[in-house]
C-alpha cells in the first residue's frame, strides 16, 4: 500500500445561484423583498470521493460543466467544499492557469520572484533556482522586458517553468499543456514525466484524450458533478469517448 497523497472524502459543492450574483446593496434589498435570496441552489459536485497515491498521474475527464475545474479548486484549497473533506499531504503547486500571478508592468525577472513567492518560496531559494527557470523557458534575451510586451506563449512558458522547476509533491494542471508551440509542448511533457519519476503526484485535467492516454496512470470520469467511473486509463477513456 503506497502513501495516499490526496484524500477526497464525499465532497459536495453547492452554489446558491441567486445570492451569488448580488454585489450591490440595491440588488440585495430587491431580492430580499422578493424572497429570491435562498432558492436556486446548484450542485457542481455531488458526493465525490477518491484517493490519489504517491507518484500517480491522475487524469480527470468530463465534458464542459462537469465540475472538473471546481474539483481542482477544491483540491488546491482555493475553495472550501460545502460538505466533505479534502486532505492533501505535502506541498501543492497549482498550474491552474499559467501566469495568474504575473504583473504586466514588471519585467520577466521581477515576475519570477513575485510568482515564486506566491507559491511560498523564499527569496534565497528563488535565487538558487533562477537560472534553471530562465533556461527552461528559453527567454534569456527577454528577461528584462516588461511582461506586457510578451506574447501569450512566452508568458505561458515562463509560468510553466516557474511552477515545475522545483519538484512539488503535488502538481495540479488544468489544460495547461496546450500552450506554446509543439516543441515546447513536448518539452513540457518531458518535464512532467521527469516529475513523475521523481515521486511527484500529478493531477491533470485535459480535453485532449490523447494526452491523458499518454501520461496518466488512472482516470476519473466526471459527469454533471458525479463520479461516473474511476479506473485504468485505457478502458475508462474508451467508454468516455463512446458515451460522448
Amino acid at each position, binding site marked *: 500500500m503506497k502513501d495516499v497523497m490526496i484524500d477526497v472524502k464525499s465532497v459536495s459543492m453547492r452554489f446558491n445561484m441567486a445570492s451569488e450574483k448580488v454585489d450591490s446593496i*440595491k440588488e440585495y434589498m430587491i431580492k430580499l423583498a422578493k424572497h429570491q435570496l435562498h432558492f436556486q441552489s446548484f450542485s457542481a459536485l455531488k458526493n465525490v470521493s477518491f484517493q490519489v497515491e504517491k507518484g500517480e498521474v491522475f487524469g480527470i475527464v468530463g465534458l464542459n460543466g462537469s465540475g472538473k475545474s471546481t474539483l481542482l479548486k477544491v483540491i488546491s484549497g*482555493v475553495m472550501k467544499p460545502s460538505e466533505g473533506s479534502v486532505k492533501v499531504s505535502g506541498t501543492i503547486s497549482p498550474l491552474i492557469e499559467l501566469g495568474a500571478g504575473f504583473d504586466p*508592468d514588471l519585467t520577466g525577472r521581477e515576475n519570477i520572484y513575485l510568482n515564486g513567492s506566491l507559491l511560498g518560496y523564499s527569496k534565497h531559494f528563488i535565487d538558487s533556482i533562477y537560472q534553471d527557470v530562465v533556461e527552461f523557458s528559453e527567454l534569456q534575451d527577454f528577461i528584462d522586458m516588461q511582461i506586457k510586451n510578451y506574447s501569450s506563449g512566452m508568458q505561458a512558458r515562463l509560468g510553466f517553468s516557474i511552477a515545475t522547476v522545483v519538484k512539488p509533491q503535488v502538481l495540479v494542471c488544468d489544460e495547461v499543456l496546450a500552450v506554446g508551440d509543439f516543441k515546447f509542448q513536448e518539452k513540457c511533457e518531458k518535464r512532467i514525466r521527469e516529475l513523475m519519476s521523481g515521486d511527484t503526484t500529478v493531477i491533470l485535467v485535459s480535453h485532449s484524450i490523447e494526452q491523458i492516454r499518454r501520461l496518466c496512470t488512472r482516470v476519473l470520469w466526471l459527469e454533471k458533478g458525479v463520479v461516473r467511473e474511476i479506473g485504468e486509463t485505457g478502458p475508462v477513456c474508451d467508454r468516455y469517448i463512446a458515451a460522448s
Partner: protein
Amino acid sequence: MGRATIETFLRYKHLLLNLITRDLKVKYRRSVLGILWSFLNPILLMLVLSAVFSTIFRNDVEYFPVYLISGQTLFGFFSEATNGAMASVVGSSSLIKKVYVPKYIFPMEKALYAFVNLMFSMVAVAVIMLIFHPPISWTIILFPLPLISLLMFSMGLGMFLSAACVFFRDVQYLYSVVLTAWTYLTPLFYPIDMLKGSFIYTIVSLNPLTWYVTYFRNVVLYGIPPTLQQNLLCFGAGALALVLGTWFFKSLQDRFILHI
C-alpha cells in the same frame, strides 16, 4: 489561530515584501523623478494649501506650514492605506481564484505599502521643520508612536472595508464620500479650538484621526509629552480596529471566492 497561522504567515512573508516592492516599482516606473515624488508631493501640496489658508482664510496658527504638513501627511497615509486595502481583495481576484494565498495578505500589504510612502513623506516634514525651525524638544523622538498606532487603526479599518467591498461594491462609492467628510472633521488645516462651543467640536474631538494628528503634533511641533490617556486612546482604538477588522475578515473570507 496559533502556531499554524504563524507558520503560514512566515511562509508568505516574502510574498508580502515582494508585493510591496512591486507596488513601489510600478508606481514610479516611467517617471523621471521616481521615488522623489513621495517626498515632493506633500511639499507641493502643502505649498498650495498654505497659500490658500494663509491668504484666503486667515488663521493665526503658529508655524502654520509645519502644522499643515504634519496633519496632511498623516491623513494622506490614512486615506491611501484604507482606500488601497479596500480595493485589494477585489483587485486580486484573478489570483485568489487560482492560487491558495492567505487572503489577509492583500489588505495588509496595501496598508504597509502606504506606510512606506509615509516614511518618505516624513522626510518632507523634516525638511519643512528645518526651514521654519520651530523649537525642537526631546519629545520628537516619540514620533513613531502615533504613526504605529495609526497604522494599526488603518489596517483594521482596511480589513473591514476590503471584506465588505467583496459583497457590496457600493462600499467604494460610499467610502469616498465618508472620507471627504472625514477630512473636514479632522483638524488638518484649522485649529480645533476654533470650533469650541459648537456641536461640531464634540464630533471632531471624538474622531480618532484627531487623536492621532494631535498626538503627532504635540510630540513633534509643540514638545508636549503624551499623556497616559492619549496613549490609551490611540493604541486602544488601533488595537480595537485591528481585532474587529480581522474578525470580520476572517469570518467572511471563505465566501470571497464566490463573489469576486
